[in-house]
């Protein structure tokens, strides 16, 4: 039989560092569980998880070819597409993964240590790691198949990825929290982001937009995050609008909204 004294040690009198360690362990355990439920014991499902974004890139390239569009900057078309599409894919996958947190958490929340926030955090972290793996696969394929590789500033590109991911995760978490007040909010919020594929400088660059249109699209924080990533990847592109501060302010705003919604529901 287990030492029941351990129970008290686990729940009482621990400091902040110990509390943080427990939270990290919980999130890691949930990530491990999520990986196994999404990809199965064999790991064969891992390949399938990355096929969809690869098909997305292929379809976009095909669309470019059909309408005769080429890269608007001095870079090959595939590299131009992936400079915007990979960060955007990370945004969308973060939205989807965090949005699933409630249904994933449902059978687990009867355990007193697990909250919806833990499950959402685990889903978001796993999606970020998946995004990095996807990036590696896509860059390697582009180099091996087409002989093209660009990465002007890896840290700037990674920063753009982080911002896209944070925007997706915080947006989905805000929707998740608001949907406790009204269950329709989440579905409405998911519909609202559909046009972002066409409005976030994925198929074009912000620099080529007329000033009047940029004034409107510039309110879209995802456009800024994608531009930061593109600036980091392409050697011959320097965005004139990318603002990390604006994207970060939006992330903070969305998280505050989530906190407020959770507090309102508790009251």
């Amino acid at each position: 039989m287990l030492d029941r004294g351990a129970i008290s040690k686990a729940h009482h009198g621990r400091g902040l560092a110990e509390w943080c360690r427990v939270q990290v362990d919980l999130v890691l355990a949930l990530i491990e569980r999520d990986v196994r439920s999404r990809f199965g014991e064999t790991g064969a499902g891992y390949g399938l998880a990355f096929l969809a974004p690869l098909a997305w890139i292929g379809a976009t390239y095909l669309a470019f070819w059909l309408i005769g569009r080429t890269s608007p900057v001095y870079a090959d078309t595939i590299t131009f597409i992936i400079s915007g599409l990979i960060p955007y894919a990370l945004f969308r996958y973060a939205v989807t993964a965090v949005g699933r947190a409630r249904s994933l958490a449902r059978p687990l929340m009867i355990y007193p240590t697990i909250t919806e926030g833990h499950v959402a955090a685990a889903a978001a972290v796993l999606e970020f790691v998946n995004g990095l793996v996807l990036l590696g696969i896509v860059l390697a394929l582009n180099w091996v198949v087409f002989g093209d590789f660009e990465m002007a500033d890896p840290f700037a590109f990674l920063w753009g990825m982080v911002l896209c991911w944070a925007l997706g995760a915080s947006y989905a978490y805000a929707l998740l929290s608001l949907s406790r007040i009204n269950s329709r909010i989440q579905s409405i919020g998911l519909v609202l982001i559909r046009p972002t594929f066409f409005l976030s400088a994925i198929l074009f660059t912000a620099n080529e937009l007329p000033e009047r249109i940029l004034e409107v699209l510039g309110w879209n924080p995802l456009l800024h995050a994608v531009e930061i990533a593109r600036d980091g990847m392409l050697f011959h592109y320097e965005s004139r609008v990318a603002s990390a501060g604006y994207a970060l302010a939006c992330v903070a705003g969305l998280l505050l909204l989530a906190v407020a919604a959770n507090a309102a529901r508790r009251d």
Partner: protein
Amino acid sequence: MWGFVNCSRYFRTGGAPMIVLHDASLRVDTTEKVAVLIRAGQGKSTIIRMLAGLEMPDSGTVLRDAGGWPLGYSGGMNAEMTGEANIRTLAKFADVDPLELSAFCYDFSELGSAYHQPVKTYSSTMKGRLGMAASLGLPARTYLADDRLVSGDEAFRAKAGAALAERLQDTGLIFVASNPRQAKDVCDRYYVVNDGAFVACDDYDHACAMLDASQVDDAGSPLDADIPLFDLV
């Protein structure tokens, strides 16, 4: 401390309103053994879900302690993972040594080599054994039990019952059930949910009589031995 303070919870089922709780209050200390009896289909699982924090009341406050673990619950097991991997994950959820919990569950569940197979290959009895083993190994301060305390074949029920009785010496229990039999000799206090309120009963017999009476009022027939029962050893 567990319980409800002026809690109300209503449903609308098939167009008709159903009252689970109406301005109801109940206080249970962490290590108390309390049975809450309620007619089948009148919100038994809703009460457990509110205590577990899965559901909020329409009004009022639910008192919850941090150390409440479900008893015999296997719904959180991942079907793709082995029994062992599930138990190790549970150990991480509970912040206990995964090896120690896994060794305990392997022994207690008596699943043998199946313990290392994916849970999707388990029968419901095997899942029940694993769930029960996990519950007894986890560091609960209060168990939350939904309708049954122990299940499985006769030998396993006897073993689990004895282990549970030992754990209940210093662990609390809130047992929400529609059939009172398993609560006998286990619980110290009995309540019957009647018209949305927790009605305190003097003892087990009084609780059974009150539950029977409420069943007659509601359905026109007294409560019979209509559910397979497992006497706690």
